[in-house]
C-alpha cells in the first residue's frame, strides 16, 4: 500500500482519508442531533437529568486524550518507557469510559428512562450508544497500537509514526464527538 504514496504532499494520504471518514461520521451525528432538535420542537418530549456517571465518563475520556497525546509525543522523542506506560493508561481510560457509559445507562434505566419510552430517552440511548460503538472502534485501534508496542522492536520510523498518528487522531475525534454530544444535550434542555 505504501507504494502509491507520493512524497510531495505534506499530509499523508491515509491521514487525509481518516479525516474524510471523520467528516462522514460527523455528518451522521449531525443528522442525529438535527433530528433531535426537530423532534424536540414537535412536542411530546420529557426532560430528565443525566446520572453522574456520564460526567465522570466525560472527564475520563478527556483525560485519555491527554495521556494518548503525551504517549505519541514520547514515541516521537524515542522515550520508550513513557510511551508504553501512557499508551496503557490511555487504553485503560478508554475501557473505563465504556464501562462508565454502561453504568450510566443502567442508572438511567433505574430512574425510569426507558429506551422504549418517550422519544427523548430513545434519543439519549441512540446518541450515546452509537457513540460508544465508535469508541469501541478506537479501543480496537489502541489494542493494535499496543500489540505493535510490545511485539515489534522499538524503532521510531516514519511509517510507525504515521500509523500511531492515525490512532491518536481518531481517538481525539471520538473524544471531541462526546464533548459535542454532552454540550448539545445539556444546551438543548
Amino acid at each position, binding site marked *: 500500500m505504501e507504494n502509491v504514496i*507520493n512524497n510531495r504532499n505534506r499530509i499523508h494520504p491515509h491521514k487525509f*482519508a481518516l479525516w474524510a471518514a471523520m467528516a*462522514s*461520521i460527523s455528518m451522521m451525528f449531525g443528522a442525529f442531533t438535527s*433530528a433531535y432538535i426537530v423532534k424536540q420542537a414537535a412536542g411530546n418530549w420529557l426532560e430528565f437529568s443525566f446520572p453522574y456517571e456520564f460526567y465522570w465518563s466525560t472527564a475520563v475520556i478527556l483525560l485519555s486524550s491527554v495521556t494518548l497525546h503525551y504517549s505519541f509525543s514520547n514515541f516521537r522523542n524515542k522515550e520508550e518507557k513513557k510511551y508504553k506506560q501512557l499508551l496503557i493508561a490511555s487504553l485503560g481510560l478508554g475501557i473505563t469510559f465504556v464501562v462508565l457509559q454502561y453504568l450510566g445507562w443502567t442508572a438511567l434505566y433505574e430512574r425510569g428512562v426507558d429506551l422504549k419510552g418517550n422519544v427523548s430517552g430513545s434519543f439519549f440511548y441512540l446518541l450515546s450508544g452509537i457513540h460508544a460503538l465508535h469508541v469501541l472502534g478506537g479501543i480496537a485501534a489502541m489494542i493494535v497500537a499496543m500489540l505493535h508496542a510490545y511485539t515489534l522492536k522499538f524503532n521510531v520510523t516514519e511509517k510507525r509514526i504515521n500509523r500511531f498518528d492515525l490512532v491518536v487522531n481518531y481517538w481525539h475525534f471520538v473524544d471531541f464527538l462526546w464533548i459535542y454530544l454532552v454540550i448539545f444535550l445539556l444546551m438543548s434542555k
Partner: protein
Amino acid sequence: MANITVQEQDVLIKEQGYNDHFHDHHHGDKYQTNFIFHYIFSMDHKMIARQFLITGMIWAIIGAAMSVVFRLQLGFPEESLTWIKPFLGKWIVVDASTGIGKLAPEFYYALVTMHGTILVFFVLTAGLSGTFSNLLIPLQLGARDMASPFMNMLSYWFFFLAGIVMFYSLFLSTGPFSGGWVAYPPLSALPQASSGSGTGMTLWIVSLVLFVVSVLLGGINYITTVLNLRTKGMSLWRMPLTIWAFFVTAILGLLSFPVLASGFFMLVFDRSLGTSFFLSDIFIAGQALDRVGGSPILYQHLFWFLGHPEVYIIILPAMGLVSEVLSVHARKPIFGYRAMVYSILAIGFLSFIVWAHHMFMSGVNPFISNFFVIFTLIIAVPSAVKVFNWITTLYGGNLRLNTPMLFAIGFVSMFISGGLTGIFLGNSAIDIQMHDTYFVVAHFHIVMGVAAFFGMFAGVYHWFPKMYGRFMNETLGKIHFWGTMISAYAIFWPMHYIGMAGVPRRYYSFDNFDAFRHFTDMNKFITVFAIISFFVQLVFVINFFYSIWYGKKMKTKNPWEANTLEWTTPIEPIHGNWPGNLPVVHRWAYDYNKDEREFVQQHVPLKEGEVGDH
C-alpha cells in the same frame, strides 16, 4: 515489468516524466500473479472498475426485467401471465376455472420497490460512479493506483455483499420489501404492515447499510486520491471534467450517505427495539399500537437529505463523462471549462439544501416550502450553464458521430427534456396537482434514469478500448443507440400526459377508476416500447461480452486521439499504469485544434511562446 521494452515507452514520459521509484522494488505476488488475486480479490483499480461494471450490468438486467413484468401488468391487465409462472412461481396467481394467471398485487409492489432500489443504488450509483471513478481517477491524474487499494477492494466486496443480501431477499416466501424504494415508515418500520415488511425489509436494510459502507470506502478513496496523488503539473484547474465530476460526487456521497445511515439506525431501533422515532398513532386492525410521539416526516427529512444529493451522485458522473466524450469527438476544447467546474460545484452545494421539495405534499409547512422552491429553481442556472456549454462545444465542431458521441448527444437531449419538467415539479403549487403522478415518474426517469444511462453508455463505448484493449462493434452500438433513444422517449413522453391528467403512480390497476380508464391504449403503447427497450439493451450486453474476446483490437495507444493521460498508458494494462516514469502534465486536457495541431496531449510541454491552459 521486464517484458516491456524501452522502445514501447512514450519517449516524452521517459525523458520528461518523473521517477517516483515505483518500479524500484518488486511488488510481489499480491497484485497480479494468480487467478484469485488478479480477477477476484484484486486491488488494482482497473480490475475493480470492471468488477463494478459487470456486477452493475447484471443488476441492470434484473432491474429492467422487473420493470417489464410490472409494465405487462399495467399495459395488459387482462392478459394471462401464466407463462411467467416458471420464473415467478406463486406470485402468478392462476385462476383455476379460467386458467388466467395474474400478477399478485403484493408482488407488483415488491417489483416496483426493487426496481427502484436496484436501479438507483446498485446500477446508477455503484455501477456508474464505481466503474468510472475507479477506472479514470488514477489513470487521468497520473497516479499509480488509488490512495488505498485495499480499501478500494473492500468497497467492491461490500457492494457485492449488499447485492447478495438483496438478491437473497427476492426469493423469500413473503417476498422482498414492497413499501417503495424510499422505505417510508410505517410500512418499513412495522414488520406486520405488509408481507414484504417483515424479513424482506430486514434484508433490505441490511443490504443498504452494507451498500453505504461500500460507498463511503470508495468515496474516501476517490477524494483522497484526487487531492493527494495527482502527478506533477496536474493542478486542480488542469484536471479533466470527468475527475471534477467524480470528485464532487464522492464528496456528496461522503456527506449524505451517513445521514441515510442515521435514518436507517433509527428505523432499525423502531423495528426491532420498540422505540417510536417515526411511529405515532398507528392502528392495526382497529387496535392502537402503544408507539406514540414519533414522526414519519422525520424519516422523510433524513431520507431525502441523502435522497436529493443522491440524484446528483447519479447524474454528475454522467455529466463528467459526457463533457469529456463530447469534447474529444467534436475535436474542440470544452466550451467554458471553468464555468463547467463552477457549475458542478454549485450543483453539488445546492443539492444539499433542496431536499424538502420531495416532501411538499407530506405535511411540510408551506412557508418552509417557499425556501425550498427558490433553491430548487436556482439549480436550473448551473444546469443550464452546462447544457449551453455542451451545445456550444458541439457547435462548429468536426463531429465524429460514433456510438459514444451519439450517446453523449443523447444525454444532452434527455437532460434538457427531463430538466424542463423539473421546473414544473419544483414549484410547490404545481406539485399539488403533479405529486405522486406519472408526471413525476416521467420526469425522474428521463432526467436521472435514462440520462444517466446515456452517460454511462457513452463512457462504456468510449473507454471500452482502455478496459479491454478492444473496440465494441459500431453497428450494434448504433442499433443500441437509436433503439434506446426512440423507445426511451416513447415510454416516458406519454407518461407526462397521463400524469398531468392526474393518474397516480404505483397503482396496480386502473380498471376500477372511470377517470383513468381511457388511458388503456397509452399504457399499452408504453409497455410495448418498454419491452422493445429491454431487448435493445440485450444487444448492448451481447456486444459488450462479444467484444471483450472478439472485438476489433486496439492497435495504437490513443485511438480517439484524446488528450488525457489514460491514453498514454500501454495497451496491455499493467499494475502501476505506466511502465517507467510518471508523465508530467504541462497543460489542461482540452487542447484540440490548437495552433494547427489536431490534438495536444496533456504531457506535451508548451512550445516557446505558446500560451497554456484556458
